[in-house]
């Protein structure tokens, strides 16, 4: 019996090739989109779960309460981990990691490695990082021991055995390779190219590991299975009181510690991590995936039930011959499943072809191949499920036909069936229009962020990083002058950071409008005299740094408008000459710089101060002319090799660096665009099928109308009108939904566009045009047919 079903299913598909193609391609495209998103979501949710102890690992985080604000930080201080293990016997292990960078030299090869982690032996006890070579217990014990990931080991030593090989760090610390480990999995919230033993830090910065006030590392604890972390958290205030320092006590600081489950660090935690995800994006994409699958299923249901009239005769015959309703239901369900399985094959092919593009779009390697992790089997199950779900309604409708009616041809689509199909088309276009509006809003916000005046010059600025190498710092002025002599290099400056890079935050006391010393967390920019003019930042009160004032390197700071506001001054000029104390320095505010965006536009501009500090510079920034850029860059590179032979030439463009802050949003926007296009495409496929079917059914009517004198445009108009009305109806449902969704999304940006009417107008008109093109194609074809032919075909 099944054989008979399959046979007739295939013959039916073959006979109605165009319908079958529309059905199968629509489903396959929908499945592919759904499947890729499913892989993405699964990947995002899989972060850090591969560690054997994943459920028992916690990250210790801190809320830092100053008298004026609370900072939710993810980093902690170095002595915290060991102290917790000593105070609480229940803690099975603790480990600390410090993100670090070294200039790594092996014979003549030199690389600036910014992805290094300082770690202690307990790292391997807590996390699952298998060593390929080396002794887990000893590899990170001695100072300047290095454990490399496989890729890094290959980069430095090729196929030779790295164990025991020496490397020179920052040109002065000899180090030894003691282990090689597997590459870090892509779904890990922190990644590194090599581990350097934590004991090294005491050789570089003696006493660093006992500084209670220095928040610069992450701390992880291993707790027993099923441990109640909340109960332990309740005891942390007492812990803080035991370990607080006099300095902190004097400043009125309070640290509240919390335990964050490892599995929440990437996706749930709002405190950030070296790599962090976005739960709402995951939700949005899951919804989009479900929508696209829904659109594809709707196509399937619509096309199948629309064609029911054609299958009615067969149903009648089968019933007369002895088929029961159940058997017919099974027959039509198995046809649906067959169509879905064919779609599955196509979808597997599409997924295979588009996975690399999708990886690129999403900015990470979600999967190397669809053949891993049993993805394909899951796709297969999803396909079968879709076949059953989408096939149920048509199967029930078809199997319910009364044999006499169908055999006598006294059969037409019921009003209920037509209403249902129209309702489903409305759902499809509602979703599509919502996605179009969404895409427009996302893109507008992105372009707004890119084109927003940032308060500094970012174009044609090249930043060369030397990682604070003191040898370079010492000759900074000479190097700057030499670089400026290169043709097309207009100016040069040295600073600790630039907008778009991170910066230090300094706990500072500043005199406020009441004359009191107010505590404020200041973002800190260590710069030179040329920095402000070169970045074309505007001084709104007071003056910029100047060599004419001998004390500018020791006493002067410039604050931004946000700091002025935090201190309660009404206008910037009021802050000039006010006192401050910061990290052992004190002096006066000499100027106020206009707020500039040193972070992404998702953040409001926070209080910041600049100071001249030639001993803490890390980068040179050159303003170049737009002419002959490649030549200028290579000239700079050649000069760099002479000026700083020990430093590799690493450069970035300031505007590109800043735009990288929006990688997540750009990714989001691109994915949104692609899936919106897909949704429209599938909806249109369905519309095309329905339109061609509806015209087919009205062939006779069209013939009669033409004989009676109807014009071609009149007939096209008549056939298109009913579908266009559906699109208009969809738009009225879609607009409020889209407005609400995008309004919510935009709340995530401190600086955002207003949703404007034209975005809706464009989406609505676009949907209408696309729908009209789709439908009129069929309508024109039908209208141009010779009426004699269409009447004879009856």
């Amino acid at each position, binding site marked *: 019996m099944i054989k*008979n079903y399959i046979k007739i299913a295939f013959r039916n598909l073959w006979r109605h090739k165009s319908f079958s193609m529309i059905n199968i391609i629509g489903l396959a495209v929908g499945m592919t989109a759904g499947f890729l998103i499913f892989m993405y979501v699964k990947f995002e949710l899989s972060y850090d779960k591969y560690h054997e102890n994943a459920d028992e690992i916690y990250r210790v985080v801190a809320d830092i309460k100053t008298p004026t604000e609370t900072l939710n930080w993810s980093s902690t201080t170095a002595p915290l981990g060991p102290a917790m293990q000593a105070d609480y016997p229940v803690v099975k292990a603790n480990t600390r990691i410090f993100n670090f960078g070294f200039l790594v030299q092996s014979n003549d090869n030199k690389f600036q490695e910014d992805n290094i982690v300082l770690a202690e032996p307990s790292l391997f006890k807590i996390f699952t990082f298998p060593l390929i070579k080396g002794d887990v217990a000893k590899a990170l014990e001695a100072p300047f021991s290095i454990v490399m990931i496989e890729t890094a080991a290959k980069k430095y030593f090729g196929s030779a055995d790295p164990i025991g090989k020496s490397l020179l760090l920052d040109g002065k610390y000899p180090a030894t390779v003691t282990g090689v480990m597997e590459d870090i999995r892509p779904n890990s919230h922190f990644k590194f190219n090599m581990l350097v033993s934590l004991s090294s830090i005491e050789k570089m910065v003696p006493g660093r590991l006992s500084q209670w006030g220095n928040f610069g590392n992450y701390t992880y604890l291993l707790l027993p299975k099923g441990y109640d972390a909340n109960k332990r958290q309740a005891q942390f205030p007492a812990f803080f009181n035991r370990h607080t320092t006099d300095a902190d006590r004097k400043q009125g600081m309070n640290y509240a510690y919390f335990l964050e489950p490892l599995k929440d660090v990437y996706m749930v935690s709002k405190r950030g991590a070296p790599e962090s995800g976005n739960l709402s994006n995951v939700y949005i994409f899951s919804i989009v995936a479900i929508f696209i699958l829904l659109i594809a299923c709707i196509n399937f249901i619509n096309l199948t039930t629309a064609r029911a009239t054609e299958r009615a005769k067969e149903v009648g015959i089968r019933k007369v011959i*002895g088929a029961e*309703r159940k058997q017919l239901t099974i027959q039509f369900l198995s046809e649906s499943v067959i169509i879905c399985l064919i779609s599955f094959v196509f979808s597997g092919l599409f997924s295979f072809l588009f996975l690399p593009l999708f990886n690129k779009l999403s900015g990470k390697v979600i999967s190397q191949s669809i053949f891993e992790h049993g993805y394909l089997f899951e796709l297969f199950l999803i396909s079968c499920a879709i076949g059953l779900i989408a096939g149920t309604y048509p199967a029930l409708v078809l199997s319910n036909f009364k044999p006499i009616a169908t055999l006598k041809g006294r059969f037409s689509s019921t009003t209920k069936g037509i209403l249902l199909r129209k309702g489903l088309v409305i759902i499809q276009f509602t979703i599509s229009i919502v996605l179009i509006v969404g895409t427009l809003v996302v893109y507008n916000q992105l372009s707004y962020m890119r084109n927003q005046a940032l308060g500094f010059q970012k174009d044609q600025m090249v930043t060369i990083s030397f990682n604070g190498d003191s040898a370079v710092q010492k000759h900074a002025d000479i190097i700057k002058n030499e670089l400026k002599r290169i043709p097309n290099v207009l100016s040069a400056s040295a600073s600790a950071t630039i907008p778009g890079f991170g910066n230090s935050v300094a706990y500072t006391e500043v005199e406020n409008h009441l004359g009191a010393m107010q505590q404020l967390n200041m973002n800190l920019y260590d710069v030179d005299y040329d920095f402000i003019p070169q970045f074309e930042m505007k001084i709104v009160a007071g003056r910029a740094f100047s060599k004419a004032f001998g004390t500018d390197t020791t006493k002067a700071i410039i604050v931004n408008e946000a700091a002025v506001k935090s201190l309660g001054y009404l206008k910037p000029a009021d802050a000039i000459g006010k006192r401050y104390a910061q990290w052992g320095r004190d002096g006066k505010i000499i100027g106020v710089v206009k707020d500039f965006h040193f972070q992404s536009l998702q953040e409001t501009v926070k209080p910041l101060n600049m100071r001249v500090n030639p001993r803490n510079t890390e980068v040179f920034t050159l303003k170049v002319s737009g002419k002959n850029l490649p030549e200028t860059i290579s000239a700079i590179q050649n000069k760099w090799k002479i000026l700083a032979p020990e430093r590799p030439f690493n450069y970035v463009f300031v505007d590109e660096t800043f735009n990288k802050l929006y990688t997540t949003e750009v990714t989001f926007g691109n994915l949104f665009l692609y899936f919106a296009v897909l949704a429209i495409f599938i909806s249109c496929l369905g519309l095309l099928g329905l339109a061609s079917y509806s015209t087919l059914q009205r062939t006779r009517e069209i013939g009669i109308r033409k004989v009676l004198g109807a014009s071609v445009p009149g007939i096209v108009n008549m056939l298109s009108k009913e579908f266009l009305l559906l699109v208009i109806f969809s738009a009225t449902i879609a607009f409020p939904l889209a407005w609400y969704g995008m309004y919510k999304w935009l709340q995530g940006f401190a600086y955002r566009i207003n949703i404007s009417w034209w975005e809706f107008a464009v989406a609505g008109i676009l949907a209408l045009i696309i729908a009209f093109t789709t439908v009129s194609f069929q309508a024109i074809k039908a209208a141009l047919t010779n009426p004699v032919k269409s009447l004879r075909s009856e």
Partner: protein
Amino acid sequence: MIKITNLEKFYRTEEVETIALNKLSIEIATGEFVAIMGPSGCGKSTLLNILGMLDDPDAGSYVFNEIEVAHFTERKRADLRKHNIGFVFQSFNLIDELTVFENVELPLIYTGVPSSERVKRVEEVLDKMQIMHRRNHYPQQLSGGQQQRVAIARAVVNKPKLILADEPTGNLDSSNGNDVMELLTDLNEQGTTIIMVTHSEHDARYSHRIIRLLDGQSVMENIMV
């Protein structure tokens, strides 16, 4: 074999109620060949549908093989139908996507006949209908006469006790039509009861008895000699 008593059937639309069968009583014995005649709209097809258990009466009794079936559920009727009744239609009603062989095989599939047995029986009946050479063709590739022979083959493959034919020659030329009537006569002579609705006096002459209907009532019976 068949005994209907005071059978009634109405068709209702929103405004009009049409009486299709009006207290009709008929008896047909096993082995008979009966023709039902009458003008369009007299209730012939309705009667045939009820006799074939494709439709149920609104009132009255229908006894088939000494079983009262008037109020059977659809499922029970389907079960009784597939084992006992074969249908032949004016428009053949073959399934376009199935070959000649597969069309004839279908009733055997639904009655659960094993595959090897099916092949044997289908070949036997195709041979008898002289369309064995067309077994792998699709209906569209056949002439009207050939299609109707396939339809008859399909109706008899299950060895039904009763064949219901609804104007079986209506779409055929006279030569093909005569062939079909000969086939039906042969089947009747081998013991199958046949009830045939027809407009053709010529075809009706093949039967033993003609029942003439008018406005849902039997108005005359002719016994053929």
